[in-house]
Each structure stands twice: as structure tokens, then as C-alpha cells.
């Protein structure tokens, strides 16, 4: 999309101007993470691909990049899952139903999970990182028979921080997904696994030669995961990571998200480890 310019100096179709969406509901997923349902005030559904994000703003407070966590194939409201960590995210999750939020987008690249048809899919994530992957999971589970093994490895800090716990159980019990959950710190009574999610990779069941891996989490965790996957023999070009960078525009213009030659907002956020490996290995790039 390019903007049109009229001679009068009026600015048409400025991609920096948001649409307005009405907040329908907010659901507390964990103590600090909330899922919001939003409806466009102009009635035009926001079409997106799994892995894309929007620039979401609280009126007068600010705008931040947030991945879409709803289904890309079913009709319905725009869904975002947000961890409250600071000024803008907190203002968004504490907005009352009926409040309008600003939305620009969707922007960025997709998980392109359908490339994995006929083979295995391994999804490795932790904490809030599951939210950007949920659309890809819903997309592939809708055509579950097109894939071989589908494995989700998920890590959370504590059992209380596990996101979409009920839904993960449903994916495992009824929809043919292998789900392994681990926590960094397990209290007394926790019967599940304790340890880092990266430790699950070496034992997970998938065919490295026929696998696409989707990884989302803090950069150290993604680097460690990618290393484990490489050790198992998954080619770097089949490992997809969703990168996080400061973003002020989402459309390749503000320069904030640059990782050397890549604008993470436009060339990413999802890029292959083949592209990222040499860059992630250098300090503070």
C-alpha cells in the first residue's frame, strides 16, 4: 500500500493513522496476562496471517506492537493476548469494555505453518510467547490430518504463569498434539516437569529431516533452542524465530527495529535461523 498525495497538500491514507476498535471483553489468563476481544468500529474485519502483529494504542498513552492471538481462518473479533509490563500494556489491559483502542496493521511476516504439510511441526515457546503462536497452532490443528507429528514444547516460570492451560490440554487430548510443559520453578505439589524448555528438545519425538520448527521467546531461549534443533539435524532454514525489537511504526519507516540490514517489523518479525544465526551471535547488534 502506498499513500496517495493530492496537490492541495492533504495527506491521504496515512499508514500512521490508526483505525478504532471497541473493546468487547477482557479475560484474565494469568496474574499479569490478559486476552482482549476487539471489534472494528467500521465493521471491516481485520484479515491477517498467523504470526502478524498490530500496533495497538491506548488513547493519549501510547502505541505498542502486539501479536494477534486469534484464529486467522475463523471469523470473529480481533484477539490480542497481552502481558502487562509497563505504561502502555498496562493501560490497554485495564481498559474498560466499551473503550476504543487504536489499531494499525496487520504488519510483518507469517509463520507460514502450511509449508509443513506432509511433515512434522515442532513449536517451542515460553511465557507470553505462546500468544503469537496460537494462530499458527489453530491453523494447523484445523487441518490436523495434513501433518505428521505436531509437538508443542512450552515453558513457564511457575505453574501459575502457564498460559492457555485448558486449551493446551484440549489440543493434547482431543486434537492430536503432543504437548510438553515445563516450569522453571515448581512449588511443592507440582507434579509436572521442572527445567528449561530447551531441555525438552533433545528428547522430543520428530523427524529432523522433515520438520519445520517455530520458536518464540526471549532471544537467549531462541538461540539455545535453535542450537538444540541444529544438533538434532533440523536445517537452519527450517527453523523460524519471531524476533522482538523496539518498534515505533511497524512499517519500516522509523528505524527502531533494525537488526543490521533487516527491518524486523517488515522483513520479520518471523525470520529463519539461517538468516538470523550470524546476526544473533554478535554482541548487541
Amino acid at each position, binding site marked *: *500500500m*502506498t*499513500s496517495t*498525495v*493530492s*496537490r492541495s*497538500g*492533504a*495527506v*491521504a*491514507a*496515512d*499508514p*500512521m*493513522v*490508526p483505525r*478504532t476498535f*471497541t473493546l468487547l471483553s477482557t479475560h484474565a489468563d494469568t496474574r499479569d496476562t490478559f486476552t482482549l476481544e476487539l471489534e472494528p*468500529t467500521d465493521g471491516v474485519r481485520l484479515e491477517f496471517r498467523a504470526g502478524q502483529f498490530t500496533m495497538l*494504542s491506548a*488513547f*493519549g*498513552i*501510547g*502505541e505498542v506492537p502486539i501479536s494477534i492471538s486469534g484464529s486467522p481462518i475463523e471469523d470473529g473479533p480481533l484477539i490480542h493476548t497481552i502481558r502487562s*509490563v*509497563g505504561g502502555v500494556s498496562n493501560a490497554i489491559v485495564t*481498559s*474498560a469494555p*466499551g*473503550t*476504543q483502542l*487504536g489499531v494499525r496493521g496487520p504488519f510483518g511476516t507469517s509463520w507460514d505453518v502450511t509449508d509443513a504439510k506432509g511433515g512434522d511441526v515442532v513449536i517451542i515457546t515460553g511465557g507470553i510467547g505462546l500468544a503469537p503462536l496460537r494462530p499458527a497452532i489453530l491453523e494447523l490443528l484445523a487441518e490436523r490430518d495434513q501433518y505428521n507429528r505436531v509437538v508443542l514444547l512450552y515453558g513457564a516460570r511457575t505453574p501459575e504463569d502457564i498460559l492457555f492451560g485448558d486449551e493446551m490440554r484440549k489440543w493434547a487430548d482431543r486434537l492430536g498434539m503432543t504437548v510438553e510443559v515445563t516450569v522453571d520453578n515448581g512449588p511443592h505439589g507440582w507434579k509436572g516437569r521442572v527445567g528449561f524448555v530447551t531441555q525438552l528438545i533433545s528428547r522430543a519425538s520428530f523427524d529432523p529431516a522433515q520438520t519445520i520448527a517455530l520458536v518464540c521467546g*526471549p532471544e537467549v531461549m531462541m538461540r539455545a533452542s535453535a542450537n538444540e534443533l541444529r544438533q538434532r539435524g533440523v536445517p537452519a532454514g527450517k527453523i523460524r524465530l519471531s524476533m*522482538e*525489537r*523496539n518498534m*515505533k*511504526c511497524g*512499517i*519500516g*519507516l*522509523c*528505524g*527502531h527495529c*533494525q537488526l*543490521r*540490514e533487516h*527491518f524486523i517489523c*517488515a522483513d520479520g518479525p518471523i525470520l529463519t535461523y539461517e538468516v538470523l544465526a550470524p546476526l544473533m551471535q*554478535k*554482541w*548487541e*547488534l
Partner: protein
Amino acid sequence: MTSTTRTLKVEGLRKLVEELRARGFTVIAPTVRDGAIVNAPIESIDQLPRGVGDQQDAAHYRLTERADGAYFGYAAGAQSMKPVLFPAEELLWRGKRDAAGAFTVQPASNEGGPYALLGVRGCDLKAIHIHDAVLTSRGFSDAHYAARRAGALLISVTCGSPAGTCFCASVGTGPRPSEGYDLSLTEVIKGSSHTFVVAVGTERGAEIMDALGASTASEAEMAAADDIAKDAALNMGRELNTDGLKYLMYANAESSHWDDVASRCLSCTNCTLVCPTCFCTSVEDVSDLTGQEASRHRVWDSCFSEDFSYIHGGSVRESPRSRYRQWITHKLASWEDQFGMTGCVGCGRCITWCPVGIDITAEAAALRGTPSKARK
């Protein structure tokens, strides 16, 4: 070039400004303000810095007097035309919210212009075309820049007196621009004769020359203009070896030289503010006391600030050495991958306006392991 080269006398230059104003252009041209060359709106050529020259070196800028009464006898001023087409602060939209939390958004329109930019240096002209590529040639465009740019008329000048920090000849952007202008002036002063040899780059430029009744330049006048450009190219204060520069920068990502630069760099952001190609911005939301009215602004930002790369938990580029590396690597290397061109036009401003005199050409030469050419 769509037409033959013309000439104007001083009176012709005066009429050019009058003609542009009569056509509704706001004419932006060099003026003197606070001891520096500053681009500003002018009404007449009497506001141009006549008889003014300059002296520039690392962390040094001073205006001088010229006896020849030249109108364009100085090199790059403190700012390029960047603030005209891409202002440091731009209103993006205003909004109003009602009691129920619903809000309406009113996109900003552009005020001012159309602009005729007069006296654009070769380096700065190239910088405008670089901004065209950055801001209007990809998936999304900066709508405000695009609107201003669409109406702008570009009149460049040949740099006859390059400064000590200039190196446009090394990067091929000057001292005489070869394309990308409507009109391009070369000021020729010989004894009592004072003329402007005008290369015509567009139909629009030709039509303006016709309207002024500008005569065709003689062979001798064109040769005199060529000589000025040739001499200036030999008088650059600095030089940048661009051979394999991208690979040099990428290969040196973890060089210990960054520690050396960091020991001098103050992270003051001056270089990015004066650089005609730097385009990084942030957005700021402002709301009134009631919180019912708000506006969003796009403001210049700099990769030298720590907040620039902040993500929850800490900045990606926490250390000053990583920020200097980002800046110079972007200019001289990643820009090429992103836009198919270098991000440095050789204007020398970052050298002149760096309070501690850090020199992009010297740092690049140091990474190459060769001594730099700094005229001292």
C-alpha cells in the same frame, strides 16, 4: 538533461526568486543566522549569504568573509534541507474522546509549501533522493514527506569552495550534481563578470528558464563552470575509500576498534541530527489534562540514545560502542543492502558538528588499517 544550458546574471537570479514566489512557492535558501549558514524562507536574493565563506574541520565551524561577493561561496551548512521536507516534529493526528471511551481520529494535513529549494548542495540533493527511496519507495510511505516532496522544486548549486570536512567527491555526489535537480547552478565570478551557468534537468526547470528569458550559455561559460567543479573535486578536505566498504564493516562487527571510538563518543546524537540521510523517528502521544483530547507526533530520534533499542528488560544496544557501530554500519553498509545505495553522501556534517571531532572517514580508515586523509 532536457534542454540546453542557460546563464543568468545576478539580476536573473533575483528574478528567479521573484518568479518562484509569484508561482506560489515558498523559497527556502541559505541565509546567515547565529554565525552559521541556515536554510530559511527568503523573499529576495538580498537575504542570501553574499560574500560569506566558511571554514570547517573536525569539531570546528566558522564563517569567513569573501572578497568576491559570491552568493554560494560556502560548503554544507549546519542543516541540509531535511528539516523542510522531513521536519523534526510532525503532527500525525489529533483525536477526541467522549465519556464512553469512544474516540475519533483527525489525520493531520500539511501546512506550508509548495517549496522551491534553492542552493541545494550535491550531497544534500542526493540525500533527498535517498529519502525518497527510504520514505516513499517501499511497502509503506511517509505520507507527509511524500506530500511535501511531490510539490517541491529542486535548484542545486555546484560547490565551488568545499570545506575541510567535505568528501562528496569520494562518494560520487558532488561537487556538481549530475542528476536529480530541476535546475542546477554553477556560480562563475571572473573580474567584474558574475554569472550563474544553469544546467536544466526537467521540463519544469526549462519552462522557468524560458519565462525568465535566460540566454543559452556559451562554450566558454560552460567550460568555466566545468573548471570550477573540477577544481573543487581536487580540493576536498577528506576522503572515504568506498572499496568493499560493506564487507569491511560487516567483517569488523566485533573489532576492538569500537572500544576506542566509545572512549571518545559522548552519545550526544549530534551526528544523527545533522546528517541529511538519518531518518529514524519516534512517536509521542500528548494528551490534555482531562485526557479527552490527544495528539500523536512523529519526532526525530537517534540510534545513539539508549532508549532507542529498549525492549522490556533492557536495551538491545546498551553500550555506547554498540551504538556507534550501529550508526556507522548503517550508513556505510546495511543501507546498501536495504536500499541499494550508500547512506552517506559525504557532506561532512557529522565530523564538523561532533563536539569531540569523531570523523567517519577516519574511523572507516582505521577499520581498514590505513591512515586517513585529514587536511590539517
